[in-house]
């Protein structure tokens, strides 16, 4: 129950650490949230996409004449028309050995998945736009479709992309330690393949974009459900560049003011980042250009166009109804709608419907891992080899997935266990399916495969899952190295062993035996599964350079604090909240620093004109550690500036100044205090300013220290009814350590929500394509998001290990989903006495595994 929740009003005792109720609720719970579909702009036109009903086909012709004539239709754009005025998606993040096919915002000569957009209707209402879709005639010529990883790996099948080698887009290997030696020395080698089918993020709000065109200047205000508004701004700006490279460069050269500003900024940037830039790994661009040299021409044209442009779009994200990674990428629809609005000179919005969201709103995790473990008979792990395959679908997600996912596997796969050597080969394949996006812990299947494999190895050696983990887990002061074999450095925050030990204390193994016997008596099977993991949230300073040298260029966090001349405190974050309660938690942090009430602090987010650049926006479990960190540091800095002025005003020493509930006073004499407004007013009068802040501090925050690990051990109990295949989860325990907690209500919510998605992934949800890449799960009748009946109460034990440095809060957004599939499939294996090698276990599959029904061939 919620009795511990607080309405705490005073800053004197500190808000951080308290279960402070959410300020977001004040608008949400009364129906006053402002989600993308609620914005109600004057004169807005509505867009709808005509989408391919074929998985793979040539487009012979498209006829939009009848649709264009429908009253209320403003314009029907064919794919070719929009592609002619936009630049293609080019790889932003790549890796040596990978080729990323370029693609445009629409498809014009060929479709590559069900739902591929071929035309865009812009009309006075969404109803009319959808009517017009029915009038568009497309002549498709069916092609063989690639519907599975197996089909994609087979040579000689129809290729999705002409320049690729078959349907494999790339393969890359990383080796750490002497793998041959480890495998030769070990007592035995155990090999197994694990398969995870496709899932989908499925936030309750779909995607949407509303492009408001200024009729006089042509400036675009883009309202978007975006986790990363700044990246979207620059991506759309680049893709809308129309001038040739030469024309843009000539224009840039003529604009001396812009030119010198750019050159100065570039010089500063290079000076500040020389070392990181020198480390940058360009092998990915080399392999890309070998396959498709035109990549460079597009890059130059967009780059030059950005230099020459007089104006860039503003991107704004208001309230967002969940995302889980799916609203981080820039999607084809974003570019198509922006281009349509800009071509028409009129405002246009597109609100995705649920069917579209299931078709291409973001899919994830269709991956296969063949793992070989070199192990001694006593259970000591020696070496690990992984062959991984990721099915990216037809069009490569932009900007980062799926190459980044594979690179994260490289860093994470060995987990919190000691190994002498590790090698991973990852292949990225393309199939006629929807787009892969990051999904809450995008790399999470390394935890699933590893933790499943550990149980399997234990069984083969006659050990228990507890024994094999106990023997190999890194233990502080005993077997904790300074760094993982894959590179990232470790400190006391990598406290997986602590969570594992605590979890064991919280399991009653005798009771488990009795419960198992009891379940058998009822015709059920009960089992227990354990899984541990660590997560860089935000990770040590060398984390991203371990993923790919040079990528740490993008991972700092900007933030700004201002005090207006009237004393109003405003905190500007580059995060883009979509359920994580940033507003509440940042108010807690800032109010404590300033010594004011939470209501005295305003949090500003989501508007690229007001906030600083952020590549990632909200993602990577960074809202607490990085976003919260820069809020704390900028607030602290400003408070010091305020105290200096206040000390003068109060004729006291700075060291004696105290601030409680906004009353700035000499310690011990609160009755003679002054306010932030008094101090700001004084500064404003002295400096004669009215419309700029009295105080301002902007910072680039790089996190603290060597640690930054969030860690956890999950334990699942599952009870399977052998008659129906139905699963119950009588208990689910998470022992987690994300450092000192800012708001327990928020953190618990994040953990539970993640676990719920893990439960969904294992027992209910599947983005189901048949062998011909027909999508079978296009509504919520087929894609089963679990309900309150399927998700149990989740028990959470917090450890809160502290480390050196300020703002030691560590990330917690993704962890729940990382641990759950592993713990659950381990529990199923224990219950049924079989070693499960797949992640999706609906009732029929459980009954097959239990031997109750015959497996389908």
């Amino acid at each position, binding site marked *: *129950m*919620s009795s511990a*929740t607080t309405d705490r009003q005073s800053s004197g005792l500190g808000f951080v650490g308290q279960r402070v*109720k*959410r300020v977001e*609720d004040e608008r949400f*719970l*009364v*129906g*006053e*949230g402002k*989600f993308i*579909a*609620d914005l*109600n702009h004057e004169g807005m036109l509505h867009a709808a996409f005509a989408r391919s009903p074929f998985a793979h086909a040539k487009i012979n012709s498209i006829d939009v004449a009848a649709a264009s004539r429908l*009253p209320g239709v403003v314009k029907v754009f064919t794919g070719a028309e929009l592609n002619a005025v936009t630049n293609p998606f080019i790889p932003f993040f790549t890796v040596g050995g990978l080729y990323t096919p370029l693609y445009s915002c629409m498809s014009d000569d060929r479709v590559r998945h069900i739902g591929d957009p071929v035309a865009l209707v812009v009309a006075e209402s969404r*109803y009319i736009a959808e*009517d*017009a879709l*029915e*009038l*568009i*005639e*497309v*002549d*498709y*010529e069916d092609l063989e479709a690639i519907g599975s990883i197996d089909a994609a790996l087979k040579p000689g099948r129809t290729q999705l992309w002409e320049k690729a080698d078959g349907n494999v887009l790339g393969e890359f290997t990383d080796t750490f330690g002497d793998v041959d030696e480890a495998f030769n020395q070990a007592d035995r080698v155990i090999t197994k393949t694990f398969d995870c089918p496709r899932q989908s993020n*499925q*936030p*309750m*709000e*779909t995607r949407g974009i509303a492009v408001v065109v200024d009729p006089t200047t042509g400036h675009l205000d883009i309202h978007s459900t975006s986790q990363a508004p700044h990246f979207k701004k620059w991506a759309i700006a680049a893709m809308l560049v129309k001038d040739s490279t030469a024309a843009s460069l000539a224009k840039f050269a003529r604009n001396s003011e812009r030119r010198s500003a750019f050159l100065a900024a570039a010089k500063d940037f290079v000076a500040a980042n020389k070392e990181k830039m020198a480390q940058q790994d360009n092998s990915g661009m080399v392999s890309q250009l070998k396959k498709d040299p035109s990549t460079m021409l597009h890059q130059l044209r967009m780059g030059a166009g950005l230099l020459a442009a007089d104006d860039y779009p503003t991107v704004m994200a208001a*309230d*967002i*109804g*969940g995302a889980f990674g799916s609203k981080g990428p820039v999607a084809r629809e974003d570019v198509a709608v922006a281009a349509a609005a800009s071509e028409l000179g009129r405002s246009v919005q597109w609100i995705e*419907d*649920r*069917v579209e969201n299931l078709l291409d709103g973001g899919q994830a995790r269709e991956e296969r891992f063949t793992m070989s473990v070199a192990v001694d008979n006593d259970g000591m792990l020696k070496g690990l080899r992984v062959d991984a395959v990721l099915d990216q679908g037809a069009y490569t997600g932009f900007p980062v997935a799926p190459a980044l996912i594979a690179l994260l596997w490289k860093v994470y796969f060995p987990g919190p266990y000691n190994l002498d050597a590790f090698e991973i080969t990852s292949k990225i394949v393309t199939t006629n399916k929807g787009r892969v996006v990051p999904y809450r812990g995008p790399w999470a299947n390394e935890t699933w495969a590893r933790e499943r494999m550990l149980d399997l190895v234990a069984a083969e050696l006659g050990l228990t899952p507890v024994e094999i983990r106990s023997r190999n887990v890194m233990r502080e002061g005993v077997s904790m190295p300074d760094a993982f074999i894959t590179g990232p450095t470790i400190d006391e925050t990598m406290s997986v062993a602590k969570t594992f030990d605590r979890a064991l204390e919280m399991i009653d193994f005798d009771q488990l035996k009795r419960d198992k016997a009891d379940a058998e008596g009822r015709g059920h099977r009960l089992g227990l599964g354990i899984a541990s993991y660590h997560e860089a949230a935000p990770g040590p300073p060398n984390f991203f350079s371990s993923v790919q040298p040079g990528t740490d260029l993008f991972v700092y966090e900007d933030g700004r604090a201002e005090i207006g001349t009237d004393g109003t405190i405003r905190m500007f974050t580059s995060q883009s909240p*979509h*359920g*994580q309660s940033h507003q509440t938690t940042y108010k807690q942090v800032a109010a404590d620093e300033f010594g004011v009430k939470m209501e005295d602090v305003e949090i500003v987010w989501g508007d690229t004109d007001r906030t600083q650049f952020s590549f990632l926006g909200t993602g990577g479990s960074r809202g607490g550690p990085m976003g919260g960190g820069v809020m704390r540091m900028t607030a602290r800095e400003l408070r010091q500036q305020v105290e200096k002025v206040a000390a003068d005003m109060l004729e006291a020493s700075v060291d004696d100044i105290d601030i409680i509930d906004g009353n700035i006073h000499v310690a011990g004499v609160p009755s003679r205090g002054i306010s932030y407004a008094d101090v700001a007013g004084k500064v404003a009068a002295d400096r004669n300013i009215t419309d700029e802040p009295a105080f301002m501090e902007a910072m680039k925050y790089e996190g603290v220290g060597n640690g930054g690990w969030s860690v956890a051990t999950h334990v699942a109990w599952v009870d399977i009814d052998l008659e129906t295949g139905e699963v119950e989860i009588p208990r689910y325990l998470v022992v987690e350590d994300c450092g000192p907690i800012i708001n327990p*209500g*928020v953190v*618990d*919510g*994040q953990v*539970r*929500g993640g676990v*719920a*998605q893990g439960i969904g992934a294992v027992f209910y949800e599947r983005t189901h394509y048949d062998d011909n890449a027909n999508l079978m799960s296009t*509504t*919520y009748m087929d894609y089963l*998001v679990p*309900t*309150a*009946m399927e*998700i149990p*109460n*989740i028990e959470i034990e917090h450890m809160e290990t502290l480390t050196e440095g300020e703002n030691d809060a560590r990330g917690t957004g993704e962890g729940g989903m990382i641990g759950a599939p592993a713990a659950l499939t381990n529990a199923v294996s224990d219950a049924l006495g079989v070693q499960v090698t797949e992640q999706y276990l609906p009732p029929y599959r459980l009954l097959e595994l239990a031997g109750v029904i015959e497996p389908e061939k």
Partner: protein
Amino acid sequence: MSQPSVSAAPGETIAVNLQVNGTSHSLEVDPRRSLADVIREDVGLTGTHLGCEHGVCGACTVLADGEPSRACLMLAVQADGVEITTIEGLATDAGMHPVQQAMHDAMSFQCAFCSPGFLMSTVALLRDNPEPTEAEIREELSGNLCRCTGYQSIVDGVETAVQLMGGKSS
């Protein structure tokens, strides 16, 4: 091969009288428009959300003559003369409805996109069954999807509402 072509429906409208949160709205609506769209666009109350538009997620739940109903599946013309209550109709000048207050106290929601549906379903649930068990709460709310919370905090919120509304604590 080519796709079939369908001709558009003619654009005639029908007069309806919608009673939304106690206010009467006389509107001319296209007969095919959903109640949800008309509430959101014509009445201008955007607190009712559309998560799936095919009757599964429950985000669009409103009370129609007191009964929880999916406004995405109802046509506005079917609601002629029906008393509709939306999330905007719960709070009064005296403050939040106890169910809203309870969901706030329990920190029930995250993105809160699902919240209108849960709030309306809960109001109806507690009217019909003022002291539900946890199992009853979970069963009754199983027609509403939430992707963020794992439901526990929402169930807590309902239990808190039971207390606030004078039922026994569970």
